[in-house]
């Protein structure tokens, strides 16, 4: 059990895919102008990562090594198609807002990364937990970035007015550059804390 706790901790905090591994940032930057978009994107990613890691882990002993990548991509695509069809059927507005970024979950390096780094060597249940943890870590970062951008850009959170309407809306916050700035600063803080911790540890 201790091992599983570590897997979850690694995925969400210590080895957060966005902040420390710098993977999967394309969609992280693109959908964070609204909290709702980020939440849906995050939940979709948790679903796809967890289930594809689970599936890849089940069939890992039967897949020949040289077609491994192709098989993984196909498994991931199948789950992404599920998500796409589900969104189109039940949340048509959301499906339009996210546009091509739903399809781009396939090329999101987090999923492939977890599959290659973890699922090919571990059991299905552990892989499922690992995939879900990485997805949750991704979602949390997305939500924090989106909360800053939406609050400053529109004065709302999840579409609910939070700041008084008299506060000037900061249009730059909903435009692309702010996503780069905020994520850059986040990664800076995270790396800084990690390096400081490592230095402190080695001195003792």
């Amino acid at each position, binding site marked *: 059990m201790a091992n599983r706790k570590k897997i979850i901790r690694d995925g969400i905090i210590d080895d957060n895919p966005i902040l420390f591994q710098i*993977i999967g940032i394309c969609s992280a*930057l693109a959908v964070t102008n609204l909290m709702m978009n980020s939440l849906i994107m995050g939940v979709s990613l948790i679903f796809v990562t967890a289930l594809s890691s689970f599936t890849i882990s089940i069939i890992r002993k039967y897949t020949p090594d040289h077609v491994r990548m192709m098989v993984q991509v196909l498994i991931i695509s199948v789950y992404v*198609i599920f998500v796409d069809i589900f969104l189109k059927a039940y949340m048509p507005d959301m499906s339009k807002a996210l546009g091509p970024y739903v399809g*781009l979950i396939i090329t999101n390096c987090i999923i492939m990364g977890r599959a290659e780094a973890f699922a090919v060597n571990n059991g299905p249940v552990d892989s499922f937990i690992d995939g879900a943890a990485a997805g949750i870590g991704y979602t949390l970062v997305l939500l924090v970035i989106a909360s800053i951008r939406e609050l400053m850009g529109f004065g709302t959170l999840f579409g609910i007015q939070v700041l008084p309407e008299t506060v000037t809306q900061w249009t730059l916050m909903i435009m*692309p550059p702010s996503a780069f700035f905020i994520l*850059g600063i986040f*990664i*800076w803080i995270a790396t800084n804390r990690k390096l400081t911790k490592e230095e402190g540890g080695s001195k003792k």
Partner: protein
Amino acid sequence: MIQVHPLVIFFASIFTSNMIFSNFLGMCSFTSVSKEIETAAGLGIAVTFVLAITTVLNYIVYHYILVYFGLEYLRFIIFILVIAAFVQFLEMVLEKYLENLYYSLGIFLPLITVNCAIMGVSLFMVTRNYNLVQTAFFGLGSGIGWALAIVSMAGIRSRINEDNLPLGLGGPAITLITTGIMAMAFIGFSGIVSIS
């Protein structure tokens, strides 16, 4: 729907809706391969070439095969297969006939399959309902825009002395912040042409 002139799409996809600065596509290789101008240029050329061709291939496959059989929902799988197959094919051709080019571009080819810009352009082509000529210009323009972004980023990064930066700011963090500043500069182009 108003038909946008192909040339407008071409310039818009280079400047105003640049793949990196306004659509955030291809960021993974953008942050990791932008340390030196030469490698960045190599990857840029490879991406432009693959983009220009796969987008047209995907257009043909999508409109003449998938739509014909009513299988639009399979487009994700088909697009990724077309891209992977084309990259594999290109690698084999280069290795056999153009060995010099293979050694300079070869290492980037596997990276391209997972570059979200390639997949993204094909998906945008579908959502925006482009016709064949528009698609061809859109693919080429997006590739040139991406190459332009990564080469200029590499140019800036080679001038940054990472030793003088505060702890933790070096590497990806400073790259993202610089990209943000460049994206602001590119907003300046937004009056020239626009597509949405």
